[in-house]
């Protein structure tokens, strides 16, 4: 009998969360760490067993969930999603380390919520029943709301949390409508993605589905002008939470997984919309970053910029573009996620990540400063870092399909790089003027370990990207073939 590996992976965090309440409170953090490590091992194991050239969907598990509505518990991974599993588990582990000493009260609740969020996020990457996906998608809201509202970094974190919750709840409506519309378009209503992908929909239905899904996922991506929650969120949330939300681009993943393949005709008719939104986000993010004085908000704008590149590239609808987009998104999980985690270390030391209260931080915290530099450079797509292969493929694809937008992208990326380096210089170089900075202690061993892991991945994937890209390639080719190109 085969083990239900994916279900184990998805529900292990929930089981850990339940266990927290049964064991003494002093064991909480260690138990969470053990659970997350086990999950990381499980995800790595899945990655090793996964055969890139094999069946499109592997580790399939199917069970009837709500027979009356024809909803299934249907999970599986393909080349597009399998790499997100280790990335997610790794990032959650990093997030745990980043919050190791900063959570004093209600620790059990805090970590239970974090584990709930992990379960839901893993579920998003694995679900192949649209309604099951939606359930996981909405299930992320509650833990995020609480983690931000209760353990936020600023006084108005509660307000920001409520705003985020409402915006995302409203964003769920178009998603749900699109899924209902898709289900109703079939002779027998179904939410099974593999059936929906095979179906030929009339063009008008495709338009409706495409636009609804674009709106729903666009809020999470985020597209400009739907992005206003993100800078606020980055400022109000502890870095350990922002790392998860910004690092794991579930919005863009939704575009790749659902929006484009489910409505291929509409997507190709409206390629200009996708490309335009991508370019707008690219330019806006890059320019917006120049105006920031807070490193966390700056990084949030950088992430708007980069996810814009992924969307722009996707609008070429080629295998190369899909491959590039997925590798770029994965690289962000490590690089941007890592950068936010390092900023959380910094915030715990200085109490702020505003450049005005930093200055010369590299003198007292050389390790932290160099780690942040590497993650940041990966974020701007420096050759030799993990982002470069993906970015390169995307730029090539874009220059072929939307030449003007591709040129604009190159321009925006150089602005973003400049913006990042300028912020970095002001924060980490120069004279130390603040006593907090002068007394700050560099990374502790536990934090140091996170840093080493991050750098190993950023540099390792950057220098030798072959195996990773090969995992994505067959799935990306199938993806492009499914669009009829």
């Amino acid at each position, binding site marked *: 009998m085969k083990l239900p590996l994916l279900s184990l992976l998805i529900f292990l965090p929930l089981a850990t969360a339940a266990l927290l309440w049964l064991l003494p409170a002093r064991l909480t953090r260690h138990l969470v760490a053990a659970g997350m490590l086990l999950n990381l091992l499980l995800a790595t194991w899945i990655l090793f067993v996964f055969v890139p050239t094999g069946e499109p969907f592997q580790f399939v598990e199917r069970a009837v*969930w*709500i*027979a*009356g*509505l024809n909803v299934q518990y249907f999970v599986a991974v393909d080349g597009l999603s399998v790499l997100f599993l280790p990335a997610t588990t790794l990032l959650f582990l990093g997030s745990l380390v980043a919050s190791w000493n900063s959570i004093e*009260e*209600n620790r059990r*609740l805090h970590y239970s919520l974090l584990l709930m969020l992990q379960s839901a996020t893993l579920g998003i990457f694995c679900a192949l029943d649209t309604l099951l996906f*939606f*359930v996981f998608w*909405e*299930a992320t*809201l*509650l833990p995020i*709301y609480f983690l931000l*509202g*209760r353990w936020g970094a600023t*006084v108005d974190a*509660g*307000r920001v949390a*409520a705003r985020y*919750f*409402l915006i995302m*709840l*409203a964003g769920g*409506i178009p998603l*749900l*409508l699109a899924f*209902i*519309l898709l289900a*109703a378009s079939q002779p027998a209503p179904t939410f099974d993605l593999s059936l929906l992908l095979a179906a030929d929909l009339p063009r008008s239905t495709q338009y*409706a589905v495409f636009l609804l899904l674009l709106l729903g996922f666009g809020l999470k991506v985020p597209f400009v002008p739907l992005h206003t929650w993100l800078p606020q969120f980055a400022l109000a949330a502890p870095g350990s939470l922002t790392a998860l939300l910004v690092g794991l681009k579930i919005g863009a993943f939704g575009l790749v997984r659902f929006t484009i393949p489910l409505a291929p005709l509409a997507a190709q008719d409206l390629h200009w919309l996708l490309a335009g939104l991508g370019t707008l986000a690219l330019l806006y993010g890059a320019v917006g970053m120049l105006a920031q004085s807070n490193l966390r908000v700056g990084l949030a704008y950088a992430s708007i910029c980069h996810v814009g590149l992924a969307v722009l590239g996707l609008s070429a609808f080629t295998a190369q573009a899909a491959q590039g987009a997925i590798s770029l998104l994965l690289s962000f999980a490590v690089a941007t996620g890592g950068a936010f985690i390092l900023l959380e270390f910094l915030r715990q030391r200085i109490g702020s990540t505003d450049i005005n209260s930093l200055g010369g931080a590299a003198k007292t915290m050389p390790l932290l400063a160099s780690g942040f530099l590497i993650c940041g450079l990966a974020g701007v797509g420096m050759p030799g870092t993990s982002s470069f292969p993906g970015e390169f493929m995307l730029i090539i694809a874009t220059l072929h399909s939307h030449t003007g937008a591709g040129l604009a992208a190159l321009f925006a990326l150089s602005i973003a790089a400049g913006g990042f380096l300028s912020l970095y210089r002001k924060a980490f170089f120069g004279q130390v003027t603040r006593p907090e900075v002068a007394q700050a202690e560099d990374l502790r061993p536990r934090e140091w370990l996170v840093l080493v892991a991050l750098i190993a991945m950023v540099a390792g994937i950057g220098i030798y990207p072959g195996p990773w890209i090969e995992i994505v390639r067959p799935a990306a080719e199938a993806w492009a073939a499914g669009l009829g190109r």
Partner: protein
Amino acid sequence: MNTALTEIFWTQQSSLPLLLLVQLLPLCGAALVFALRQRSTAVLAGKCLALAELLLLVYVVGRIDPTLPALQLAERFAPLAWHVAVDGISLVFLLLAALLTLLMTLYGMSRSRISPGLLFSVLLLAEGGLVGMLLTLNLAWFAAFSALELWAVVFLLRHWAASRVETQALARFVQYQAFGWALFAAGCVVLGWGHAEAHAGRWSFDLFDLQQTLPVGKFQTAAFYLLFYGLAVRTPLFPLHGWLPNMAQHGLIAVAPALMVGVKVGIYGMLRFVLPLTPTAVAYWQPYVVGFAMAGIFFTAALAFQQSDLRRLLAFAVVSHTSLLVIGVFSLHESGIQGAVLLAANFGLAVTGMWFIVGFVFRRTGTTELHELSGLFERIPFLAIAFLGCGLAIVGMPGTPGFDAAHLVLEAAIDNFGALPTVAAALGNVAAAGFLLWAFQRAFLSQRQAGAVEVEHTQPMEYVVCGIALLALLVIGFFAEPWLHLTEAASQAIATRFVR
């Protein structure tokens, strides 16, 4: 298509007249507790009786076959015009009524002016009224049981009212309810008279008899309006909701609103009587009713945002989400009706849970004014989480029954009214999430104000009450299948009358 009602007698399904037991248990229980009211055993007896009623109903659910569209376990006793039967829909409401009564007996709050024994016996009497309304297939009996339940609520409110505003709220309540009841009774008379005209002066209020000779033309319209508005006051439906906010704010906390709006007998009455008895009028007036309901969702949600009192806020939340139920019922579509039934149960349980929590907060702080509450999360985290959990059930988050049910209603709404009204209805949910989160934010998550009362930690009884409500929501939410199965055939049976 054959749309005639059918029924299966109890003798074919059971060796006992189960529904008679279901009806008599709370009524006899009320008498017993009333007799014991001076002794300490009264409280225990009340709790046991409430539990017994719930278990009995669970047994009844096991006895019926939900795949049949017929009404089942039917009992008739002609001299009293006694005619009862159940189907999947009424069982959902019955189970909810029994569960809520059990929770209320656990919660059991009273000011010193009414003894616990008396309170429990009135509670059981109210349950008897609710159960009677849900069992009977006779309009006159429905009205009579409705009067019994209203009397019980008024009795409780009268013993609670100590100040002038409280008395005023009570007076307003009585005026509204008496008016609504009178409208409903008038509707019954119109239908009964119609039957008498057609059958040589033989009056009947029985659903089965009335269904054979539906009134035509203006009479049907009149009957529809009288019954619908009578129930709309009770439900309450915008714009006839004026009694609820005052009663919620100044009346007996938790118990009174839970009795009035926890079990949506108004919605049940529409499904059981209004839709089958006045089908032409229902189909004709459908757009207007739905239009009003749409307006109601947003108008009352906007009012909820204006409230500074948690109890009033919840009252407006009830009116807002009840409008969504009416959209489901008046979609006249199988999944819309099924969704409305499940959603009604979900809302009833969730909002009652929230009312209990508000009651617990009031016991600690002596107020439900939002600006006087702060930082409660630190002291009573479990109650805070339960409050949010119930709130999310109202919003229809996945994992609560609200999700599956709202999904069904939206599906029906897309089919019937197109995309735009559906989006509007769905946005109503976001609005509800807005004010519920806003209230949660202020009362529970905000920084504790200087000089605020140090509240005590959660009590075991509070864990039990909120735990049961929360657990029921989560379990039904994740395992919705049995409930869909239970209500499917019955919803179909109602919707077949309106095949387009």
